[in-house]
């Protein structure tokens, strides 16, 4: 489990993180969401022990990062957004160096290196120099390096930054595989759909503060079960259209009602599914012909735009 208490991080001219409190249970895959400068990278760096916070306590599996740094670091795997590499080492040598850094016994090292290089699909590049790898391959190599110590906690800062869509998808698949192995993962990303795929909790940061954090369910509940209602009418005449708009506008938990082309209507709903069924019953009772009625629960992107993007410029 990761516990952050009153974390504050300052830079020369800006306060990057302001009194952050956060608890991430074991095995959770936690997505950090927020615009540039929100404090995601600073928080991850402080968790990794590479940035000295102004104050605050960070506990990893019960160990204090400040008081037991060596013990705590053994539990962490950290991958920065643009990870530096040793260009003149071979792929296996690079991983072996970090296997040694993480105190893996010499006899076990090579097997461990082989296992993780295979996991990231770089076995065919075993003897290649790092300088000859593409950007996507380098990211995979650094992921292998990060996983080589079998860390309980994985800190991934924008792991897909700078990758093209195809490589990003490949990398995303790889992360999903890693995520399924019971580790606690903290991942930050701008690509919100990337997080939707495998995060079971998110935290939205903005201007150094955590706006909201929790599982997607908790956040939806916190936000009053915000969901998107979509209705598509069938060749609605003027009367039916007005009837439909009247039903929607009379529903107190519907907001932001919009009419689109082809008799498509959308609205933001803060009620639950039972409330949606009541609206559907009213539409049916008024004999308005519809071909589609759906409720889409808010995903990470919706939540971010609803909460996080309000003050984001």
């Amino acid at each position, binding site marked *: 489990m990761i516990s952050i208490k009153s974390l504050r991080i300052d830079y020369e001219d800006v306060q990057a993180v302001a009194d952050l409190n956060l608890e991430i249970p074991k095995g959770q895959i936690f997505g950090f969401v927020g615009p540039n400068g929100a404090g995601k990278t600073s928080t991850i760096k402080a968790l990794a022990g590479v940035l000295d916070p102004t104050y605050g306590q960070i506990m990893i599996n019960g160990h204090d990062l400040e008081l037991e740094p*060596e013990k705590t670091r053994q539990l962490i795997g*950290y991958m920065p957004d643009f990870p530096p590499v040793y260009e003149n080492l071979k792929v296996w040598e690079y991983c072996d*160096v*970090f296997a040694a850094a993480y105190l893996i016994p010499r006899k076990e090292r090579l097997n461990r290196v082989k296992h993780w290089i295979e996991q990231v699909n770089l076995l065919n590049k075993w003897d290649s120099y790092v300088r000859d790898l593409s950007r996507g391959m380098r990211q995979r190599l650094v992921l292998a390096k990060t996983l080589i110590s079998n860390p309980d906690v994985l800190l991934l800062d924008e792991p897909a930054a700078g990758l093209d869509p195809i490589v990003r998808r490949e990398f995303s698949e790889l992360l999903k595989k890693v995520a399924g192995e019971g580790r606690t993962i903290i991942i930050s990303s701008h690509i919100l759909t990337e997080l939707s795929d495998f995060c079971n909790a998110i935290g939205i940061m903005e201007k150094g503060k955590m706006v909201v954090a929790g599982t997607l369910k908790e956040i939806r509940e916190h936000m009053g079960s915000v969901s998107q209602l979509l209705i598509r009418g069938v060749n609605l005449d003027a009367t039916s259209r007005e009837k439909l708009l009247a039903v929607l506008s009379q529903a107190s938990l519907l907001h932001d009602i919009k009419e689109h082309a082809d008799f498509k209507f959308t609205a933001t709903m803060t009620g639950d599914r039972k409330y949606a069924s009541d609206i559907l019953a009213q539409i049916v009772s008024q004999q308005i012909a519809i071909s589609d009625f759906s409720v889409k629960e808010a995903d990470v992107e919706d939540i971010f735009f609803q909460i996080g993007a309000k003050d984001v410029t």
Partner: protein
Amino acid sequence: MKILDLRDNALFLQNWRERMRQPTVISGVAITLIIILLIFVSAFYGQDAYRYSGYNSQYQIQDAMFWLKKSLWQILMLQGGLMLVLGTWSVTRMASRERRSGTLEFHRNSPTTRLNQALGLILGAPSLEWCLFALTFIFVIPLSLIVGFSFIILMKFYVSLIFMVFFYHTIFVLFALSSTSKSQAAFNRLPGILMFIGIYVLVITMRTQNLSVLYHATFFPAYDEVWRSLFPMAYQENSYRNFSQTLYLNSWWGIALPSLILQALVQLPLLIFAFKGIERKISTFDIPLFSKAQMTTLSFLVLFLFLGSAYSFLIYGNMYNYDYGGDSRVRWIIYSFICFAFFFGLGGTLLATPKQLSFFKGLLRAKRSGKNKFDLSSDSASHVGWLCAYALVLGSTLLLLSYVLSAPVALKILVGLNILIYVAVFSGALEYFRLSVHHKKTAIFGTIVGSVWIVIPILAEILKNKVIDINVYYVLTSLSPFSRIELFTSVLTRSNSFSTFTLTPLQVLFQGAIVNLLLAGVFQILASRERKKWQTLAAKSN
């Protein structure tokens, strides 16, 4: 993990693998062998042999023993060059690359100890040079046996050289990691290369400064002993070499010590400090190399070492050295002491004065832990604590200087106060600008210090007796420590060189102290105001 088991040391492995690629090793071996071949050839045909042997040059070619001795000597020099120049260069290059590229952050994030990381870097980066060094033993061992070179002297030479190499490599890693920003990592640009060359020029200069600690901080004692043993006849004829065996260069506080002990005495404490600095920099880049307590200890240690050497020079110098005698020897000691004390004061101030962020962080941490003020010795604390510690170091070393030299106590106190006040001016101004929010604060600080300490005294010197009155001249020149070091020396040695002044020495010292005290007061008040601003901000901060 065993600390010296390098097969498990990540940074050693990385450096070893990068530097020991087959093509690099082959070309390194080939170049070394070619150089050794050239050494044999040049030693055989060299025309300067008579200088070493005392023989007539026309017979030298037939003298195989002399040829082999000369070759051995040059291979030993090659070993030094390999490790002290090329090895040192590799260490600094690899260390600054670690800092610049950010790969060191991965190691910092790992559970390996800082000591292990430092050792990996120091031992791994010059791995190619170590291997080439080992290769040269193929020639050194048979040559030593053939010429009958003393095994003990050879062993002493290698102990001294290897310790020296380790010392230099550690110091240069410290330099390479000393920058606070990645882009300014030392040795990545021309200033770094110039600094590298400058340090070697300094080392060579240190050899001739008549002080045992400076001489034993260089690689010369090791080579001088080998030279004496290989070419005894030439040693007797060469007064310069003769100088290397003088008692004052081989003693400390008047006690004659073996060369290796003296070398350890000088280099071991500095090595420990350098390791501490490296460990600090690997832990967090944005902290100074040394803590305030470490800097205080280091200043005292260096001045204490210096005074021990000065004492030896003073009591044995007369007997052996013909260049220095009487007043000039004392004068030189005082001059060097003042320079050392002053520059350590400035250097310590640069490390001990917090930057804006560090100071603010310290205030917030103190507030968080329920304290009104933070510990004066912490990295975030104001320079005031350091200034007090420096005053103690200066006072105690001046007392020791009284043991070495006899000068009136009042004058010593006055000189000490003057040095302290100059450091106080510098530290006050530095802290004021570091804590202020001026956009170009470094440039403004540099301009002000440069103007007050260099430009104004030069102008005063030019305009003396023409435009400005002699009293104004005294005031203006007293602003600069550089124009006063000579005066302090004259005052303490009570020499006649002071007679150019129309005031008495005491009057000039008092006048200078008052002028600089006012200046120090202004800067200290400004710095204090800046501190209060940040304290108010921290108090308001949530």
